[in-house]
């Protein structure tokens, strides 16, 4: 048994562009689920709209590919009706933080027992590279042709503030760490939020000085800073370089949660 058994082999290769990190995140999530030893019949994948949300279509289990931003309420319905099911939500930054922002904070507040894996590529990939709520300041996209002027969302901090039980962030470079984080999220009751920063070579990298996929992955690697180190920096009052991606486990707690099988 390996995570490869979870793929719908007849649907591969998938629609993602060459070098897109989404496939890596699917691998890591499925590997973590495989390690949990969950049954395929009892595992449900839910997603909204976007590149990331195509993921459940490549997985053999029952899955819901829903409307834009609404994956979390659909997942809430599934989980509340059948708490015995393991519900995993694949979502993207636009899906989760823009159109689904309200659903996201309320799912965190309810602390419903689902695992949310957010593939954050900082752009609307499927519609052709428009600025999203996580597009960093100054980054170019088709709707921010002179550089984004809006501040970006920090999804992890948002999830913590809204009350999620487990929050972690890794990148598509850190496959082993990401797998462990997803597994920790799956094990933890309550809402687990794992943000995975991924490269989008076609729509983000191309416009933002990452000519090759590997340049963007190298950027993800070199700009990642462990949360512990980041906190030390802050304590000492040291400046953290711009564009630092704080990675690691942000929070692991045991607030009361909903939808946990009794």
């Amino acid at each position, binding site marked *: 048994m390996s995570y490869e058994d979870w793929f719908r082999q007849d649907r591969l*290769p998938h629609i993602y562009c060459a*070098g897109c990190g989404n*496939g*890596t995140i699917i691998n890591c999530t499925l590997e973590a689920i495989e390690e949990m030893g969950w049954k395929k019949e009892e595992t449900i994948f839910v997603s909204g709209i976007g590149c990331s949300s195509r993921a459940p279509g490549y997985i053999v289990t029952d899955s819901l590919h829903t409307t834009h931003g609404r994956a979390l309420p659909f997942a809430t319905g599934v989980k509340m009706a059948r708490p015995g099911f393991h519900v995993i939500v694949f979502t993207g930054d636009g899906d989760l933080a823009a159109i689904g922002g309200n659903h996201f904070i309320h799912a965190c507040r309810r602390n419903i027992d689902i695992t949310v894996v957010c593939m954050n590529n900082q752009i609307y990939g499927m519609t052709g590279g428009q600025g999203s709520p996580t597009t960093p300041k100054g980054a170019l996209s088709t709707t921010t042709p002179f550089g984004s002027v809006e501040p970006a969302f920090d999804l992890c901090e948002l999830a913590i503030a809204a009350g999620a039980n487990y929050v972690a962030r890794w990148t598509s470079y850190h*496959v*082993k760490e990401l797998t462990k984080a997803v597994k920790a999220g799956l094990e933890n009751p309550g809402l687990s939020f794992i943000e995975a920063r991924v490269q989008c070579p076609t729509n983000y990298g191309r416009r933002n000085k990452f000519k090759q*996929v590997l340049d963007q992955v190298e950027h993800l690697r070199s700009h990642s800073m462990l949360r512990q180190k980041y906190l030390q920096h802050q304590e000492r009052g040291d400046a953290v370089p711009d564009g630092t991606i704080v990675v690691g486990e942000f929070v692991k707690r045991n607030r009361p949660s909903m939808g946990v099988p009794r």
Partner: protein
Amino acid sequence: MKIEIDESRCKGCNLCTVGCPYKIFQAGKKPNRKGVLVPLLDRPERCTNCRLQHLYGRVLCGVCQMTCPDQAIRFRDEKSGEPVKVAIEY
């Protein structure tokens, strides 16, 4: 065990060339039938996982497989053949 790249899935992104600690994956040079530059394997017998997975009973590294966004890298059981001599570089 041996590493295998599924040419029908590989999109030639070369992400595997970053992850491998042995640098087994080398950027491809010749486009295949689909026009994809599939990476080449440089002395794949050095792969730790290929050599020792059976002994330890678990995946030992597998970063290339996990990283491959197109699910094109696989570890396949080899037909029981002659033991391969592996030169370990220090």
